[in-house]
């Protein structure tokens, strides 16, 4: 029986009823990865270790965790001990971490098995997966289209049914946007919900790890395992983690959903608009009440983000200097020359662009006007959300203004064009609040995503609302035709 496109819940049942062993499941999953190599989802496979762990699981009769023996893929910016971790960059193309990220360790401790590391935009900087040193990931729905980014490899691997779920990270939409473009479910948790220890930093105050899966229920299973306080990350939240499955089936009648006035949806592609209106109707049928809310500063999210994120990244990426790990250029005259050549040869153009912007935003004379100003606007945006959540439970937007685009068709002449694609996703990173993207139908045979934004620490509400939607629709069941897609 094929395991392709199966959910964690389905695979759990197959494992528990001995329809399949963990080792067989791993063989199948690894086989699918190989079969769909042309999608370029993976940078590094973990075949040997995965099979070894699966066999060990088969020998151990007692299974208490619902993740035991489940194959997962990890975004290649989580450090994995002994397994190459590249951030899809030349500068880390030979880096073998001596330790494992907490998020991955938590998942592995719960019994899941890492089959490989997924391709991504270099250092998570990009929303099309075109900046990877290892080449772009192809969208399983249409192979000449981008999968979205930066967690494009994870999204495509799940969409192609190779693994039931994968990890991603989201700094400005990097889980939700590829989930939307690939027709799967992706959740960015509250900032601090999941430890950032071992997650290679892009922008420290915005980065957050989360799950990508076929259903919101599976996202809840992953989030249960990933979450929790970690003394190694002093920005992780020291609060009790609820069981995200517990209230996932609660009825949602009476729930208040806000529509953000400042996002002028009439400007969007008519079919994207149409999908949004349809989903609104679905929620209304399920008992939701829609309210228009105003977030006066939200349209400043993109410029705010593109000041803060590059500033933090310019500093975070200074450690890639060719001294202690990673790529070092040859034939250098002195230390400075070594830095300049190693970094210039090791980083791709988009990463360089962002480092330069960040360096500029932090430099003497510009700090107040760019960096500090952006952090002030950030507070205004956060306060807008706080105000909105006084009258609504959730906010709803499309995940992305457009569906996936063709390779090379956006941002090559003007990078800002691509940055504006992040309009709907970026603000929740600035405010640190959770948001989920769920598939809600196709536009020109490509998936479109619906985003729900929740209040601080209310992933439970998001997962509940998403799950009820998925129980009453079948968009999440749509599968790409991998043989036929061109």
């Amino acid at each position, binding site marked *: 029986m094929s395991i392709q496109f199966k959910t964690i819940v389905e695979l759990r049942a197959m494992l528990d009823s001995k329809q399949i062993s963990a080792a067989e499941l791993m063989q199948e999953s690894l086989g699918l990865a190989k079969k769909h190599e042309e999608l370029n989802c993976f940078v590094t496979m973990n075949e040997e270790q995965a099979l070894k762990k699966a066999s060990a699981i088969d020998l151990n009769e007692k299974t208490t965790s619902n993740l035991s023996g489940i194959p997962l893929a990890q975004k290649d910016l989580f*450090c994995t001990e002994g397994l190459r971790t590249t951030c899809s960059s030349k500068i880390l193309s030979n880096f073998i971490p001596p330790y494992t990220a907490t998020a991955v360790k938590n998942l592995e401790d719960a019994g899941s098995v890492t089959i490989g590391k997924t391709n991504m935009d270099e250092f998570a900087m990009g929303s099309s997966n075109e900046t990877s040193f290892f080449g772009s990931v192809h969208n399983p729905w249409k192979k000449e289209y981008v999968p979205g980014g930066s967690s494009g490899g994870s999204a495509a691997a799940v969409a192609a049914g190779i693994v039931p779920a994968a990890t991603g990270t989201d700094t400005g939409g990097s889980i939700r946007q590829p989930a939307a473009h690939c027709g799967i479910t992706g959740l960015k948790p509250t900032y601090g919900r999941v430890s950032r220890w071992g997650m290679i930093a892009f922008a420290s105050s915005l980065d957050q790890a989360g799950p990508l899966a076929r259903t919101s229920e599976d996202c809840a299973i992953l989030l249960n395992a990933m979450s929790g306080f970690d003394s190694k990350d002093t920005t992780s939240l020291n609060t009790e983690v609820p069981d995200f499955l517990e209230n996932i089936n609660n009825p949602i009648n009476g729930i208040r959903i806000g529509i953000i006035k400042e996002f002028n949806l009439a400007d969007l592609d008519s079919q994207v608009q149409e999908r949004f209106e349809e989903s609104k109707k679905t929620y209304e049928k399920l008992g939701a009440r829609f309210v228009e809310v105003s977030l006066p500063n939200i349209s400043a999210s993109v410029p705010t983000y593109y000041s803060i994120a590059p500033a933090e990244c310019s500093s975070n990426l200074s450690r*890639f200097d060719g*001294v202690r790990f990673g790529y070092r250029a040859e034939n250098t005259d002195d230390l400075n020359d070594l830095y300049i050549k190693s970094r210039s040869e090791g980083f791709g153009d988009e990463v360089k662009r962002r480092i330069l912007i960040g360096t500029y935003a932090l430099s003497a004379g510009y700090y107040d006007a760019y960096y500090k100003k952006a952090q002030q606007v950030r507070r205004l945006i956060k306060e807008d959300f706080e105000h909105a959540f006084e009258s609504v439970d959730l906010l709803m937007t499309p995940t992305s203004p457009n569906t996936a685009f063709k390779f090379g068709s956006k941002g090559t002449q003007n990078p800002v064009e691509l940055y504006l694609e992040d309009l709907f996703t970026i603000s929740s990173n600035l405010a640190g609040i959770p948001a989920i993207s769920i598939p809600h139908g196709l536009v020109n045979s490509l998936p479109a995503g619906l985003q729900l934004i929740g209040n601080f620490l209310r992933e439970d509400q998001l997962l509940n609302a998403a799950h009820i939607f998925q129980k009453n629709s079948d968009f999440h069941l749509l599968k790409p035709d991998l043989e036929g897609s061109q």
Partner: protein
Amino acid sequence: MSWETVIGLETHVQLSTKTKLFSRASTAFGASPNTNVNLIDCGLPGVLPSVNKEAFYKAIRFGMAVNATINQTSIFDRKNYFYADLPKGYQITQMDLPIVLGGSIEINLDGLTKTINITRAHLEEDAGKSIHDEFDGFSAIDLNRAGTPLLEIVSEPEISSAKEAVAYMKAMHQLVTFLDVSDGNMAQGSLRCDANVSIRKKGDQELGTRTEIKNINSFKFIEKAINFEIKRQIKILENGEKVTQETRLYDSSKDETRPMRSKEFANDYRYFPEPDLLPVVISDEEITKIRDEFPELPKEKEIRYQKQFGLSAYDAQIIASSKSMADFFEAALKKTKNYSLLSNWLIGEISAYLNKNQIEIHESKLSADNVAMLINRIDDQTISGKIGKSIFEEMCESGSSVDEIIKSQGLKQISDDGAIEEIILTVINENPDQVAAYLAGKDKLFGFFVGQVMKLTEGKANPKTVNTILKNKLK
């Protein structure tokens, strides 16, 4: 033309915590290269810092001692620059909200007291160490020191001579060691300073162009480096030229300062709040606790030593002025009751030995227990003061206890009357002429007989007993 020197010092005090400022790796000095290094200190991708609570407490204790304002909410910033021994490409330090703000310290010079104001003191991490001359064509990087907590104390530019600068550093050394915030070991770099030196015409209000002499790590070098720099700058100004603002290094082998090559042009450090660390807030309870546990400072010790142990003002002042001496004294007091003999020894023999060898007492092989026992053996007349001195020398060499040395060298004082009487009789029998002369009134010969007895007993006879018996026998 009359010139005036203006000096401001940035003192780096290495805090005596067991672990680093942002990681739990050891800070022990002298470990094999790159062994006191964990994932965080190595600056690996994906690692995150966490703040050492004890480093904060020590910084606060310092702030309280100099009557500064303590910022109970303080934040860390990143200072961005590239250097081989700076693993992350930035140093975590405190820019806008340092833990300690203001305060002052008193310095003593030639019997006069002067107050130097402190601008601020902040916590920051140290860098690693580059070794430039051991490998052909390479510099070698050891990250053991990377992340060690430093308190950088910035003085106002109120120091007006090299001698004052030394006095300031000595006062700082005394303070941080008594506060137990640092071991103050200058040879190991626990206390070092950067000196900002400028010259102006006497009476001018505006400061002259300054140069910064980096990383000076001994009192002697501070004086020499600053004096060299003062002369150099005055010469430039007298020639009608301008001083260049730059960073310089002091080369002790040539006794000169020279510009640093590796800082070729002014950097833009791009400070911004460290996003991996949230603000640190110290509660009122913690402040109270630190205040309640405040250590005793030299002045208080001086008074207590006089009151409690009957030391003279002079002795008390000397012993209380050095943390290691005071600690030693207080530890030895637990094992001996002869306070005055102990303080005599500390100020006499022991200080002489330490001065001769240019070391601090805790760097010697002397232990407080051993010295206390030595005092006790002299006190109970097991040994004479003179033998005590030779035992002390042996103790300095081997670190052995007094009883071990007495045993191994058979140095125990002979106080047994019978044994001494026997020896005295031998001496009298062997020197009939001298006995006759003595009895005829040549009193001075008494010393000769004592000397003979001591010779035969190898100095171990109790002199008092010898005197008494000898006087009896020579009647």
